[in-house]
């Protein structure tokens, strides 16, 4: 755990750099190697997405980092240290591992699942218990309600959240994820992605995440590694660059046509201007809230709980009783780091034509509206037209 202390104090980054040097994996009996000489540096504190078609070697490359698969040749260094220096078990206790569906042990409670690695590391019982509750809080599950439940008593999304909490349990500098959100429905997936971004903003781990979904890679990745058959890197760059200038036909085919809609996956909600609207707090006199809303010319209010988390978005006529009560609706919010694409999805399911935006720990920030998004799209199109004009001008000069 020394890595945390050497890299953690200066910049708030708790992650460690990972380097793969000419790593090869040839499975027994295979004619061509599953991974042929992969060299790659993953900077500390970043999310790097491995994306590519099925069978291109993503999982193999990922599992070589925690030695679930031993490379045929080559070297892997974490924070400058060869992963073969310590035993595989010791190494793995310092690397979080999250796979599809959460892969929770069904015979253990949520708390026991999360506590596995801390217990192996010899933490005392009270520290483990505190950590479990902190983590459940972090992934948005009320500890008193969920800690003693068994996995089968949770929804798919909740199980996946616990899976993420378990991966973070011993505060490892590196976290490996293999298609972590592949098994949940699209709306839950979007929420889990937002939560991961929000957690990462706080923790700054080094996260290596495998996906076959280019949209997920664009959304989550600080950088994207696009792999083709045999673990060859087709392109390794930021999502912006990959979208704007694909390295070759393979990449542009894989990324898909760079329509304006796709570009919306690049713009985050916090890059556009959010609108303020009237909020009300659970328990406050209804009359006060209504008065404020009417003064501001609004026909609805956003109800916040005592931790500033938006809980509902009722129309004024729906407000009954003397005091604002806890809303029963299941309000879908978007994280400020969500893409405009996700925000658009959320708006489409809302009768307000807008989406509530939240920041760290789900705190309310503002709302994003259709108009904001269409304005942004117009801006993108204008820019594209300008770019084309520039290119043409350059072409004519040549």
């Amino acid at each position: 755990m020394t890595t945390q202390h050497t890299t953690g104090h200066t910049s708030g980054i708790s992650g460690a750099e990972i380097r793969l040097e000419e790593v090869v994996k040839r499975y027994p009996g295979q004619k061509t190697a599953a991974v042929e000489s992969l060299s790659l540096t993953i900077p500390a504190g970043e999310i790097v997405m491995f994306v590519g078609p099925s069978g291109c070697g993503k999982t193999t490359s990922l599992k070589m980092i925690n030695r679930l698969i031993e490379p045929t040749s080559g070297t892997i260094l974490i924070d400058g240290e060869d992963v073969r220096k310590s035993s595989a078990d010791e190494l793995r206790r310092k690397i979080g591992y999250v796979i599809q569906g959460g892969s929770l042990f069904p015979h253990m409670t949520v708390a026991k699942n999360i506590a596995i690695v801390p217990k192996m590391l010899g933490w005392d019982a009270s520290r483990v218990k505190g950590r479990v509750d902190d983590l459940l809080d972090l992934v948005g599950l009320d500890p008193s309600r969920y800690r003693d439940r068994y996995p089968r008593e949770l929804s798919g999304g909740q199980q996946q959240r616990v899976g993420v909490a378990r991966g973070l349990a011993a505060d490892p500098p590196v976290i490996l994820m293999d298609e972590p959100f592949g098994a949940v429905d699209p709306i839950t997936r979007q929420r889990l992605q937002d939560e991961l971004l929000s957690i990462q903003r706080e923790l700054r781990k080094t996260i290596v995440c495998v996906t076959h979904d280019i949209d997920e890679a664009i959304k989550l990745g600080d950088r994207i590694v696009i792999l083709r058959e045999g673990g060859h890197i087709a392109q390794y760059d930021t999502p912006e660059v990959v979208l704007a200038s694909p390295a070759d036909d393979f990449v542009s085919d894989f990324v898909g046509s760079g329509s304006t809609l796709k570009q919306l996956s690049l713009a985050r909600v916090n890059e556009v201007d959010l609108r303020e609207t009237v909020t009300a707090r659970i328990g406050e006199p209804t009359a006060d809230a209504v008065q404020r809303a009417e003064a501001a010319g609004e026909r609805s209010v956003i109800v916040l709980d005592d931790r500033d988390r938006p809980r509902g978005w009722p129309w004024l006529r729906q407000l009954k009783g003397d005091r604002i009560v806890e809303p029963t609706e299941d309000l879908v919010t978007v994280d400020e780091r969500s893409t405009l694409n996700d925000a658009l999805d959320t708006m489409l399911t809302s009768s307000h034509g807008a989406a509530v935006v939240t920041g760290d720990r789900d705190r309310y920030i503002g709302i994003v509206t259709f108009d904001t998004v269409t304005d942004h799209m117009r801006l993108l199109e204008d820019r594209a037209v300008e770019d084309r004009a520039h290119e043409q001008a350059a072409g004519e000069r040549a």
Partner: protein
Amino acid sequence: MWDFIRERQDQLLYNAFQHFSLVMQAVLVASVLAVLLAVVIVRYSWLQGLANALSAIGLTIPALALVGVMLALTGIQPISAFVAVAFYALLPVLRNAVVGLQGVDPTLVESARGMGMSPLAVLWRVRLPLAWPVIHAGVRTSTQMAMGIAAIAAYILGPGLGGYIFTGLAQIGGANAVNYALVATLGIVLVALVADVLLLLLGRLTISKGIRA
């Protein structure tokens, strides 16, 4: 029949307990052995066909024949009865333990390895607890079977209620012949019921709520 029972009350109770004790000890030893064997069998896939064939054949060996073989091998000793009962008790547990261990989701095992659990820890904390409901069912089947086998093993002086049955059979036509056979059979059924209730209780206590049916 009441008089028959009352006259031999203490002796009957003693023998019923002996029967119970022989079966439970044999099942315990057999279960531990079976689980250990199953772990090895599941580890080496080429052993699996062999194990399946052997246990299928094993179950077809008539109990009386095995008892005869034991008699020839070890002579008339209480241990012979124990070995014969344990042999039969082993097979259902072995079969279920293999099925149970094979049924553990490989991604869970990999997940456990990925978190840094040693192979032994994975076995003890993940694979066995997950296979336990199936193994436990095997132990129950095996106990029921062993109750009958133990009666036959009484032929080679095993302890328990089986002795009465043979006494009864030997005296066929005699005054108490039917009583002997009937009381012993009923006694074995009762002992078997008690054992099953105890095993059910054990299951309640040891099978995680998270995977209970």
